[in-house]
Each structure stands twice: as structure tokens, then as C-alpha cells.
């Protein structure tokens, strides 16, 4: 909700809860407003561009790709990405296997690499159906997979977080890492889309 100065809207019940909780915690010395503001800014900097950089690096550096697939967390650390408690598993799309990620229990997501999850990732419909009818769900995102393609669904139920390493499109020879990263969308790294070179 956006408020203009001089045109305040009343708080919703839950906004009122947020302000109240936060003020109580600040009064008790448990958090400071500065800490909250700092974390808000840190989270704002975590966007799918971070994940796209990891993918583009893997596409251009086979040694890095091998290390990333062996241990996603170490791969991120190697690129200087702050991972905190992230335990990352990178799953690779191939001509035979397409990977897609869901969390049926809540909304586990590689936030350090992709930011806050999109609304639909947390929706009942996505969470209920992706484990059972992945092909139908993907087609609702406009991704039609051929019948020979095997789908591997990852239900992110506990401590690991998943990033899909999409296939590099064929027509991208000679592209810079930066240009490659520009075609790697958030949805490609969740597995509900594939990168397109045009």
C-alpha cells in the first residue's frame, strides 16, 4: 500500500499488527529500526539477476558448472554471493529431463538468489497441482514440453533450496556472460519457463 503525504489511509489489521509488534520489539531492545531498514534493503538487492549471473557463469565455464552441480552452496560462495543459511541444490535441465521446483508444505525458495517468491509460487493451485500434474501446470505457464521429455519435480520440503540450471539456447554462441544472464528469467530458474534467445 502506498501512502501519499497528507493522504493517509488507515492501517489494515495486519499492518497494525506489524507496526505494533515492531515497536514493542524496539522498545524492548530486541531489534532496532536501523536493523529492520538494513535487512529490508538487503532483501531488495536479492533479485533474480543474482541467480541469472550464476546460470550465465555455469553456461560459460564448464569447470564452474561441475562444481556448482556438485555443491550449489560452494558454487555461490565461489562467486562471492552471500548465502547465509542457504543449502543450495542446482538441478540441470538436459534434452531428456526438465526440472521444476515447488514447495507443497509452505513456500521454500532460494531467496538469496531470486528474492521474495512470486505470488503464484505461494498459491494453493501451484502448490497442490505441480507434484501431481506438472505437465498441465507448465502448459498453463505457456511451456509445452514434448511427450518424450521426462519431468523431474522437486518438492522443497525441508532444508535444501533448489535452482534450476536451464539449457543454454543453441543460438547464443559467442554471447557475453552479461547478455546470457539477460535471458535467464526468474521463471526459468524455478522451471516453469525456458530461456529464449530472441
Amino acid at each position, binding site marked *: 500500500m502506498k501512502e501519499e503525504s497528507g493522504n493517509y489511509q488507515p*492501517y489494515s489489521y495486519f499492518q497494525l499488527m506489524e507496526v505494533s509488534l515492531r515497536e514493542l520489539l524496539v522498545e524492548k531492545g530486541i531489534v532496532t*529500526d536501523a536493523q529492520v531498514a538494513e535487512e529490508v534493503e538487503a532483501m531488495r538487492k536479492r533479485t533474480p539477476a543474482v541467480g541469472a549471473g550464476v546460470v550465465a557463469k555455469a553456461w560459460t565455464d564448464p569447470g564452474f558448472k561441475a562444481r556448482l552441480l556438485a555443491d550449489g552452496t560452494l558454487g555461490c560462495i565461489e562467486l562471492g554471493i552471500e548465502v*547465509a543459511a542457504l543449502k543450495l541444490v542446482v538441478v540441470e535441465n538436459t534434452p531428456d529431463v526438465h526440472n521444476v521446483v515447488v514447495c507443497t508444505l509452505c513456500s521454500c525458495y532460494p531467496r538469496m538468489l531470486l528474492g521474495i517468491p512470486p505470488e503464484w509460487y505461494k498459491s494453493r493451485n501451484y502448490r497442490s497441482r505441480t507434484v501431481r500434474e506438472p505437465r498441465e501446470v507448465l502448459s498453463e505457464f505457456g511451456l509445452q514440453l514434448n511427450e518424450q521429455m521426462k519431468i523431474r519435480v522437486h518438492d522443497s520440503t525441508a532444508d535444501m533450496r533448489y535452482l534450476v540450471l536451464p539449457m543454454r539456447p543453441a543460438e547464443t554462441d559467442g554471447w557475453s556472460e552479461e547478455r546470457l544472464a539477460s535471458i535467464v528469467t526468474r521463471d526459468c530458474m524455478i522451471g516453469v519457463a525456458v530461456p529464449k534467445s530472441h
Partner: protein
Amino acid sequence: MGGLPAGKVEPTEHDYGEWERRVDALMVLLSGGKGGKRLMTVDELRKNIEALPPDAYDRMGYYDRWVTSITQIMIQRGVITTEELGLKMAEIENRGQSPISAKAS
């Protein structure tokens, strides 16, 4: 809810408001991240979300559920009391938006 019948996936997006981002930040700090004191676990967050009434999923937004859960945990752990929270909510409602929260919103 995995495997239960459900409708078509609408690829909806939502631009998170500042208060929602602050709820997210509180969760990180209270879980012991970023120099915060560890006063909750993500499993408690989930448990208290699961404990919401069955229609909460349709009726409440994502961060509505989070702020409710985090507040419940702080009460359960004795960090704040129900009475303090009630008084604070009334105070803020009477105050209207404080300059700080108006600026930060």
C-alpha cells in the same frame, strides 16, 4: 496440500509493500540472522501458520499470515504479552500513522 485438487495456476505477481518487507525483515532478524537474537525458528513460523483457521489461506495475504505467526510466537515465548500488544495496537490506532511509519511505508 500437495496433490489435492485445485484450479488453474494464475501467474499473478504482487509488488510487496514496505510493511510486508518489514515483516520479512523481522522474521530474518528474530530467527538469528543478521546479528539478530535467535528468538524463533522457521519451523515455529510454519507451525503457527498451519494452526490458522482453514479459510485463512484464502482470506489472508502471505505476509498477513507471517505477521500473525511471528506475533503468536513472540507471545508464546514470552517476549511480548497479549496485554502489551492490545494496548500498543490501540495506541497506534488512536495515533493514526506515526511520522516514522508514514515515512517508512
